[in-house]
């Protein structure tokens, strides 16, 4: 029974991580660059939800549900701003330039949040309502179920858009091979900006969902970017479903190992496992080996 309960908690946590990793991998594919501010963008989404919540509560009983679309839209705008400031001027430069410029964005976000909101941990409103429900012998927080539902919905929507719509196919083509996409007449720059907006909106949704159960502080992003980075590596660099599965595995691993051993051991084991995977299977668990060019 305990195992079932822990698995459920691990899945809910993994669903939130999956949203984080998904946004990260989408931008990675389209822009070909690591967005190191991604964790701080998740934090910003949480802070945004905290800041907006009091204004919504006054006329809407379930602020979380109303906040979700609002956070998605505002974070998409923030994603556009970030790409305009820290990505577009650096196109055609070595990839590490974007790595550094997004580190700078992260510093600005983190300290901006600290200056605006202070260092205290804050909680965003729950998506529906707080409390728990009993599922047979299991105690499940309503928010955990909401996280699972929202994550499934958003990940499903992304898959559907990419597979079925014109704009989605263009986004996908841009992500797979920007040069070829440009040759086919796809407005690549616009597609990359759209991906930044989408990825950041997903980061914001993750921030909103995480900030209810696990609170948000200005320094919360550092841990999340590492998790996203690891999820994407485990899943195979650039693989979208791989990133989602990788995120779920990390969360289950975290909950599982800390239930048997301890948190520091779980963290150490996560990195050790990562190193073993990298050395033994550098293409990730699910990825294809990148062909060497000759």
């Amino acid at each position, binding site marked *: 029974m305990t195992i079932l309960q822990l698995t459920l908690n691990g899945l809910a946590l993994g669903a939130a991580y999956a949203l984080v990793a998904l946004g990260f991998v989408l931008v990675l594919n389209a822009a070909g660059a690591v967005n190191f501010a991604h964790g701080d963008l998740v934090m910003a989404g949480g802070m945004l939800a905290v800041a907006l919540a009091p204004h919504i509560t006054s006329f809407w009983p379930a602020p979380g549900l109303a906040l979700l679309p609002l956070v998605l839209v505002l974070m998409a705008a923030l994603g556009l701003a970030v790409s305009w400031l820290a990505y577009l001027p650096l196109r055609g430069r070595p990839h*590490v330039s974007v*790595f*550094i410029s997004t580190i*700078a964005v992260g510093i600005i976000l983190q300290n901006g949040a600290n200056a605006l909101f202070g260092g205290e941990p804050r909680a965003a409103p729950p998506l529906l309502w707080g409390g728990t429900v009993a599922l047979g012998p299991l105690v499940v927080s309503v928010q955990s179920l909401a996280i699972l539902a929202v994550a499934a919905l958003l990940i499903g929507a992304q898959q559907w858009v990419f597979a079925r719509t014109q704009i989605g196919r263009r986004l996908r083509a841009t992500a797979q091979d920007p040069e070829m996409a440009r040759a086919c007449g796809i407005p690549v720059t616009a597609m990359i900006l759209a991906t930044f907006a989408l990825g950041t909106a997903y980061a914001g949704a993750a921030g909103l969902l995480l900030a209810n159960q696990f609170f948000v502080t200005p320094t919360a992003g550092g841990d999340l970017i*590492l998790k996203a980075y690891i999820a994407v590596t485990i899943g195979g660099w650039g693989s979208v479903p791989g990133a989602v599965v990788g995120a779920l595995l990390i969360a289950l691993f975290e909950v599982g190992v800390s239930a048997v051993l301890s948190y520091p051991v779980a963290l150490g084991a996560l*990195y050790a496992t990562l190193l073993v995977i990298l050395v033994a299977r*550098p293409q990730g668990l699910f990825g294809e080996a990148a062909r060497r060019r*000759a």
Partner: protein
Amino acid sequence: MRSVLASGAVALIAYALLYASPYGLRVLTVAGVYALAATGFQLVFGLAGALSLAHGAFFGVGAYATGILGSQLGWSFPATFPVSLALPVLLALLVGLPVLRLESHYFALATLGIAQVVLLLAVNTPDLTGGANGLAGVPGIAAFGATLPRGLPLAAAVWAIVALGGLLAWRLARGRWGRALTLLRDDPLAAAALGLDVGRLRLQAFALSALYAGAAGALAVHTQRVVSPEVLEFPVMVSILTIAVVGGRGRVAGAVLGALLLIHLPEWFRFLERSYLILYGGALLAAIVLAPHGLTGLLERLLPPKPRPPPAPLPLPAPAVADGPVLRVEGLAKAFGGVRAVDGVSFTLQSSRITGLIGPNGSGKTTVINLLSGLERPDAGRVDLLGRDLSGARADRIARAGIARTFQSAGLPEDSTVLEAVAAARLERDASIATAEAHALSVLARLGVADRARERCGTLPAGLRRRVELARALARQPRVLLLDEPAAGLTDAEKAELSGHLRAIAADGVAVLVVEHDMGFLLPLADRVLALDQGRVLYDGAPAGVPHDPAVVEAYLGAPA
């Protein structure tokens, strides 16, 4: 440029001696610590192109070595400093072997993982490290019973070590080793084909960078007098990385300038209380957007360096060659997945002869070249160069044994000059860069492109790029020259010129293998032609027989209806 840097150094010394308060000197000392760490990072990241996120961990290991030995065992500087240098190097050698094989992003993440494991160990082994609290009571820099006071003496000592380390790194970066690292950063496959041991060079850069990081970590704890897990945390790594990039990637002067700027920057904004880091982030963003090549790049644009006078060409000595078979290939085979790309190919290349290798797309021509040059390992078969067995050898060993090659998509580094690119082929042979460039110039002259020696490879037209690539392969003084579609994209005049050069090269005793689609170019040139189809030899004989061989015609045109 150099005079600007020199006067900057003088101004810095004058500031330290005459104007700086104890506070100013402390900030300067910290800047020195980071300059040293960033100098090491320039070697592994700037030159070798490996984004090592373990650099902060090496810094921390050096810090903890000095911290633990100094505060717990009472060792002093002459004993602790060597340990702080040696431990990070040992760690680097240990983890470097498996990790350095990884491609860029995976390497970054693996090194980040190593750094996190070291941090976890430091926090969770309180008996050794003092745990999260760390250890107090680390002595200053003390030797022979006297402790260096803080302030000017400490700053001077730290900067003396920075100067020493900087000078060493600068000499290394400008020398053959630095050139070799830049080459393998830009194109590891080409580097291996030019005889450079990529794995060993990377490991050397990784270990040497750890040495610098360890030294910087030791000096950091001598300055702050405590050691705690903060020295292992990610912000240290981020500072070093930003210093290297803002200062100018790969440049020692960049490490120093970047450290001076980025360590002082937050101090200037202190009056903003908690908002100063927002401004710091903004300044960092502005620096990376507005100065893409860093501060040193900016300085160079304002004060362009005077071009060096070209070296006097130095002809390569002609090797003594005998007629007869040079390279024997027997039963060469390679499969990818289930596809047999090369399936039992045997042939012999003769000295002074040009052999053509033809076949339809996907018939295995390029794979044969990759197998012979060691970029792929054959599944079976024997390769024998003048009696020496090279089957399954690494690319750089094969290159050193006397096989040179060119690439289908010309693989010249865009930012290098033509002279530098060709001189790269001599790095592994010649004693100095000057000799390598002199030799390179003579090869360029032989191919009639010496006048282009100063141009950047990226600006050359396609025909000239092929010529430069041929010069680079030729500069290896190969016994066997493998050319992958050398005539692709050339005009008829250029093709005729190329044929002339290839004949002259062969006449010097080189065995030449040319993969080519262009029969009009190849058939008159070759002494003999091999035709491949589905990884097997279909035809081996005189060029004149090719157009009349039914098997070859069928392979190219498909089965007759």
